[in-house]
């Protein structure tokens, strides 16, 4: 049973609050040295799951294993975890040094060891000169670095991060994201990261766990989850997708026809048709940025071009988002801007390659 390959293992974990079930049967592993992200909208159970791992919330059913040991009823202070909160949660009445040394003090570390370890942690988060200061004398980004230093200095079995970047402003958030990932790699520490920000999740994770409604919708490497969403929810939540119901048609050269309810016919690959589970009913998922736009018809060689008219243009800087009307349906298209964006009202062709037409079984939810 004891699988030391996994830092954390959740087996059939359920959390109920009275009548309300926050987490409905979750099976999950956090492999050693890996960065695992729980991604989902608020109320999806991701924070509850993190709190259960931390020991801040009781588990109603199922087992929680840390380093192969069942820890369901082990109190939080005996779990050896590093916890970082969204609001930093530094002790305002203690200096930065004492904040970081806090966990070491309770681990019976000698004074000189504490000093060495605190200094090393401060170096690691690149704030070597703030030991004497107090939390309120540091900026938000600096406070979060200290919170991280405080969590890792105790060499925890798992590092738990509860939306640690959400309170920072946009530029700082990106800087901290890189920083966090660097530190995690350097220490090789198993990390669970909770966020509702998909770009953070995609950029940082080794393994992405998309949660919704107390369930795990999909887990896997970020690329796999992004390119091959297992449900309409994942397709919709990660990036922007066009999801259209349709039916599988006959084969067409190396590809298979998908007849959309809106009238168009797309092509898809065998890899995708396997997902229909033998049924004809499918839903086609086409990512907004995987649709090409141009004024010429580009059909052929596995590409279908659909004529349409540009209804609205959102200028986003490096790229533009278009709503293109075709056969009475609005398609969302995101394209990089070449020189200048296409104009509103222009007649346009949408090019969809077969490999970008991902299928989901029809009407499952």
């Amino acid at each position: 049973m004891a699988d030391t390959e996994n830092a954390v293992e959740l087996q059939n974990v359920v959390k109920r609050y009275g009548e309300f079930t926050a987490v409905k049967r979750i099976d999950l592993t956090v492999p050693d040295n890996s960065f695992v992200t729980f991604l989902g909208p608020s109320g999806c159970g991701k924070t509850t799951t993190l709190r259960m791992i931390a020991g801040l919330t009781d588990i109603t059913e199922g087992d929680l294993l840390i380093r192969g040991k069942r820890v369901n009823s082990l109190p939080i202070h005996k779990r050896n975890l590093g916890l970082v909160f969204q609001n930093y949660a530094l002790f305002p009445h203690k200096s930065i040094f004492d904040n970081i040394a806090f966990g070491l003090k309770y681990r019976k570390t000698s004074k000189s060891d504490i000093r060495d370890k605190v200094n090393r942690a401060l170096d690691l988060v690149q704030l070597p000169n703030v030991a004497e200061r107090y939390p309120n004398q540091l900026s938000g980004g600096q406070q979060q670095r200290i919170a991280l230093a405080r969590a890792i200095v105790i060499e925890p079995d798992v590092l738990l991060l509860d939306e640690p970047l959400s309170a920072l402003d946009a530029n700082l958030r990106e800087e901290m994201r890189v920083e966090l990932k660097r530190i995690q790699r350097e220490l090789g520490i198993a990390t669970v990261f909770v966020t509702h920000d998909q770009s953070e999740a995609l950029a940082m994770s080794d393994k992405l766990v998309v949660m919704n409604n107390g369930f795990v919708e999909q887990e896997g490497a970020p690329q796999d989850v992004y390119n091959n969403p297992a449900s309409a929810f994942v397709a919709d939540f990660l990036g922007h997708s066009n999801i259209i119901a349709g039916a599988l048609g006959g084969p067409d050269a190396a590809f298979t026809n998908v007849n959309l309810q809106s009238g168009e016919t797309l092509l898809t690959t065998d890899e995708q048709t396997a997902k229909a589970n033998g049924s004809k009913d499918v839903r086609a998922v086409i990512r907004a940025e995987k649709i090409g736009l141009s004024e010429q018809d580009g059909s052929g060689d596995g590409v279908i071009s659909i004529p349409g008219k540009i209804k609205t243009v959102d200028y986003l800087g490096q790229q533009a988002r278009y709503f293109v009307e075709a056969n009475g349906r609005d398609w969302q298209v995101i394209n990089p801007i070449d020189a200048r964006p296409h104009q509103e009202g222009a007649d346009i062709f949408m090019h969809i390659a077969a490999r970008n037409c991902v299928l989901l079984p029809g009407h499952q939810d």
Partner: protein
Amino acid sequence: MAADIAGERRAPWVLLSPSLATVGLLLIIPMLFIVVYSFWLRTATGADQVGFYLDNWIEVLGDRFYRDILFQTFAIAFYTTVICAFIGYIPAYFVANTPMKSKAFLLLMLMLPFWISYIIRTMSWINILGTSGALNTLFLSIGIIDEPIQMLYNQTTVVLGLVHYLLPFMILNVYVSLDGIDKNLTEAAQSLGCTGWQAFREVTLPLSMPGLAAGSLLCFVLAAGTYITPIVLGGPRDAMFANLVFEAIVTQLNWPLGSALSLVLLALLGVLVVIYTRYLGVDQIAKSFK
């Protein structure tokens, strides 16, 4: 231009004028009257002699009697404050940690005693501790004692009455500072290896010190200035300093002496407040919350 700047400088004073007028008329001017009174002299005929006499001050500052009562007053106020701090912290902690919904109800319950006159609340102890009060009747009926014990009219009952009166003030002050402490802080402390009790000692208790300090100061000042509780629950030798003021002004109609006495109490409590905020670092702790 110049007029604009002058107007801008005047604006805060104009805006402050209602409160300045209120404080001035109701607090500072009456206090100045008291200061002036304290230098008058009451003659044997009972009339007040207007002038600048130091007689009252010499009597108040020189007589051991007043010093002893002052000491006793501060001792009673001190015991009251310490007891309030200890037994007030627990309900405050409890209220701060209850869910939002029941919190409002519990706070209302805390306010409830204020709806009943303080004198009535103080006198209710007579019905409980008096010779024919509830406790004595109970003890007599179950045979623990043969005749009623004298429980009332001593320093202990004065402290008891004061604690009863001042406890809500302490609870509210401590509650406010406990309520402002981020729950994540205790969770962070526990994740770093603290037991619940250690997390309380390391985080919650130090961060609630401003409330505890403010509540203690309030309790001490209110207790030191009380005169009803010693009258109702104290014996003849349990007079507190405010009783002397009451005695001098209401009974003996000796306004000059009463004025000097009340100024002594005011000055001492004022000095205490200054020392308290300066050296116990109430400001300093409050700063850490920003």
